[in-house]
């Protein structure tokens, strides 16, 4: 049911774990539904995501979409990260079963939550 790419990201997740010095952290989902994603980003002064990490409680697709999302935003600007769509994550994974599309939505939301947290921190620090 899963593509090779999904299984590869599941068994060899990229950027797994917390990021030292992260300045944006987002967590989405809930345990009741069986999926929680936590996303850590470290954004430099130029607004570039220098480092990214994730932690996920969830199924194979949840872990694979988290992993893929981190790869897709690493080295990108926060605006580019905000533009990441779940469809792009699904495409990069060469497809997901229909009942797993919600995992990719969660990955998109986790990235957005981390960026929003970064922006909030930045505004707070600047004020």
């Amino acid at each position, binding site marked *: 049911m899963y593509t090779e790419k999904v299984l590869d990201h599941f068994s060899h997740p990229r950027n797994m774990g917390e990021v030292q010095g992260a300045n944006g952290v987002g967590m989405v989902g809930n345990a009741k539904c*069986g999926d929680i994603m936590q996303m850590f980003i470290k954004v430099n002064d130029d607004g570039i995501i220098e480092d990214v990490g994730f932690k996920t*409680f969830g199924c194979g697709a949840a872990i694979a979409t988290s992993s893929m999302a981190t790869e897709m935003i690493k080295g990108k600007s926060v605006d580019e990260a905000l533009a990441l769509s779940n469809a792009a994550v699904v495409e990069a994974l060469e497809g997901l079963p229909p009942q797993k599309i919600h995992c990719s939505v969660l990955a998109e939301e986790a990235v957005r939550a981390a960026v929003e947290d970064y922006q909030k921190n930045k505004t707070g620090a600047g004020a």
Partner: protein
Amino acid sequence: MRNVYLDNAATTALAPAVLEQMLPYLTEVYGNPSSVHAYGRRAKQGIDLAREQVAAALGCETGEVIFTGCGTESDNTALLGVAERYKSKGRHIITTNVEHHAVLHTCAYLEKQGYEVTYLPVDAEGLITPEQVRSAIRSDTILVSVMFANNEVGTIMPIPEIAAVCHEKDVLFHTDAVQAVGHVPVRVREMGIDLLSLSAHKFHGPKGVGALYCRKGLRLPPHSMGGAQEQGRRAGTENTAGIVGLGAAIELACSHIEQNSAKMIELRDRLMRGIETIPEVKLNGHPTKRLPNNVNYSIKYIEGESILLMLDLNGVAASSGSACTSGSLDPSHVLLAMGLPHEIAHGSVRLTLSDDTTQEDIDYTLDVLRATADRLRNMSPIYPGK
């Protein structure tokens, strides 16, 4: 990498001895069992022998055995048949909230047809009591259907005691014994069972064939209409090879049931002791009143489908009650009925043994499971750490 199949509650491997007995019926014995000529008579003999084997295993008469297409069909036939035949007596049915969907979805259908269904709630270990049944029976109750053993958590229900209550109240008793037959002794007469469903592929027989025990004197409407097969109770040309395989498999399983279950209980308990060494796990089902081949644990802070995938990548085949394996958003109705919170139900893993399982298989599985729990917990944002 070792390959270990621990999903025997889903299905079992066809026993080579069973296959051997089936093969002639897939080749030279191709006659229609209803035909008068020698080709037909030979096929009919195979079915007759299988019916004797099933009757011997269950402790009933051959005329009480109806061959069906699967356990689900047996369940459907029993419930829909009783509902139809006894609707003038009443339209109330009692079952439990942990039945297989073959029973639950049939009950839901009957509710839409104007029947009333009481779903008895199980306790935290998956049991209902005969007293619950007694107090639920009403004057318009026509059927009680309680599974013999649960397919997910392996809890064995107090079947003879429940059947006794039903008889005292003059209510028919059906049991879905798909997971029990061939694994624990099932004797319909001694246990007071009126209707019983079984399926061949759960005890090393072929897929696509089951049976319904229907007590003598109980005439239900036929499952299908047409020819006179199965004494007019299930029209359609018989799956001769499948039926022969069911007969051979039930005889094989029931002839070794004591030794097999003693061996499986030893391995099951070894697996359970090993899993208990992983911190923060929870046994699902009853600690002792459980099938000899069933192990079911929730591993907290991680999710069932990812456990299965990681086990599979390491050669171990298992199953889970996680929502993600069912295609729905809710985890197993059985685990929820037993009062498990969603997040713990999502982390369940079911490992079901067969008599082919070895101690090496169990030890290897434990190594893989420990590593899997560590790895996934390390990834989990809700794991509080060591």
